[in-house]
């Protein structure tokens, strides 16, 4: 990554888009502290991220990585309860407040009804929401998500972006990495277009989603049209990749 500069403020939803191999996941690893930067720095309220203890960092930044698997099955409640780790000492038992936070996080992500089911019994979209609930249980002001809609159907994708919108409205600073340019344009306050480790464009969806730069980045002919509505996102720039004519 080179020359990328961004800040995540409370109450904003920032979407990072770009082709495969653009460095989106690397960017997220830098922002989450799992990859120390070779140059430049990542700061949290003006403190360098690398100077924070693991627990302190988890109290400030919650991350939903792209995928995870486990050889040992857990229930949804156990899974969401893991978000309380940074709040508790090694011998401390989880108390009433921890349980309240976990219940609240499950309710917000609409997985409360599955609380005592095995995570593996849930559908892909429900499982993704359970992972977001776990991140919310951390009570961190910043939330990073790496391609949370990958593999989800239309309804789950829409529900997930609505959930991110609600979290933004509740004051969280949300950064989402996504391949879905159209949903990013409709839900995000600001966009960043990454290509080969550089920030090619940043700003509002209208500023970033320009035909010329998208065609150059994705190496594919496309058009950008206005979302026909109805809804408050009417007019949002929607990308339509063109089909090659049959020979």
């Amino acid at each position: 990554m080179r020359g990328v500069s961004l800040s995540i403020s409370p109450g904003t939803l920032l979407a990072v888009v770009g082709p495969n191999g653009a460095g989106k996941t690397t960017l997220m690893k830098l922002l989450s502290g799992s990859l120390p930067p070779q140059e430049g720095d990542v700061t949290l309220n003006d403190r360098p991220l690398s100077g924070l203890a693991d627990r302190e960092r988890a109290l400030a930044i919650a991350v939903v990585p792209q995928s995870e698997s486990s050889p040992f099955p857990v229930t949804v409640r156990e899974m969401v309860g893991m978000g309380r780790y940074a709040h508790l000492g090694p011998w401390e038992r989880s108390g009433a407040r921890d349980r309240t936070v976990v219940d609240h996080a499950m309710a917000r992500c609409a997985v409360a009804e599955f609380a005592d089911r095995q995570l593996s019994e849930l559908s892909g979209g429900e499982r993704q929401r359970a992972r977001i609930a776990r991140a919310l249980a951390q009570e961190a002001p910043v939330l990073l998500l790496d391609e949370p809609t990958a593999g989800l159907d239309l309804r789950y994708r829409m529900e997930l972006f609505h959930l991110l919108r609600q979290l933004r409205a509740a004051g969280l600073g949300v950064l989402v990495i996504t391949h879905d340019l159209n949903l990013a344009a409709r839900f995000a306050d600001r966009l960043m277009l990454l290509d080969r480790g550089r920030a090619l464009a940043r700003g509002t969806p209208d500023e970033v989603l320009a035909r010329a730069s998208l065609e150059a980045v994705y190496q594919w002919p496309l058009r950008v049209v206005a979302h026909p509505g109805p809804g408050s996102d009417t007019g949002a720039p929607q990308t339509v990749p063109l089909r090659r004519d049959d020979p």
Partner: protein
Amino acid sequence: MTHTPRRLALLALGVVAALGLSVSFGASGIGPGDLWRTLSGSGDPTTQAILFQLRLPRAALAALVGGALGLSGCTFQALLRNPLAEPYVLGVSGGAAVGAVAVVVTGIGVVLPWTLPLGAFLGALAAMALVLEVARRASPGRMDTRILILSGVIIGAFFNAAILLLLSMADVESFRSAIFWMMGNLSGADWGSTGLLALLLVPGALAVLSLARAFNLLSRGEEVAFYLGASVQRVKLTAYLAASLMVAAAVAAGGVIGFVGLIVPHAVRLAWGNDHRLLLPASFLAGTAFLLLADTVARLVVAPAELPTGVVTAVAGVPFFVALLLRGGRR
């Protein structure tokens, strides 16, 4: 989580029952009334001697070894994120066996009996250090657990070859006693060795139990555990050292008793799920009860001779585990 205290209390009752059975049965039976009188200090001297000099130290040794194997097996499964992991997977038992067999074959063990557990313990520690060092050099700064498994299995294979080499040079008598030691045997129990084992187990057990919630996180992967606030490298190193130390002490005291460390944590997982806050202490208690019962059977079946305890744990443990698996599959 709300079930935890009740379930642990249930297991503790099971341990007490197993302990009662274990000290009651033997070459001469001690009835419940006799047992109570002797424990409260008013029994006849013979029963008192049998109980306090033979049965109780042996039961205590079986209990501690079983608990240590259950707890360390569960820890290795969490550390390696592998349900097939068990206490001996990383070569600790191989190192212990090399130490013990060397003591037996060279004849030192006949002159100085306490050198047998010492040799086993030192061998186990050497294996633990060697496996760790190889894994650390092969994955600098992050102790990759896949490399740790590989290094443990390879070094274990080397130790096995060394054992065969030593055995090929042994005379018939020491060959026999070396094989018996490797099958796991608790017949050498006395209060001294049992007390020493307890002292060695306490720090390891406490360290592992303090990591229960970190193990829950680790089961979702190291990346997730890091994001949730776990100090992943420190957790892994602590788990490895603490569990290996417990295995080293248990093997030095009781030989290489198999299957307890694999079967017991799985039985608890199948019954009560994978929350390590319950799973770790429950694996300790269930291991304790299981080995107490297995050792009682080992002493009784061919009395007045006895079977190696490790044979009974396998013969009794495997069908039990298969039954559990089949029941779990239907659920």
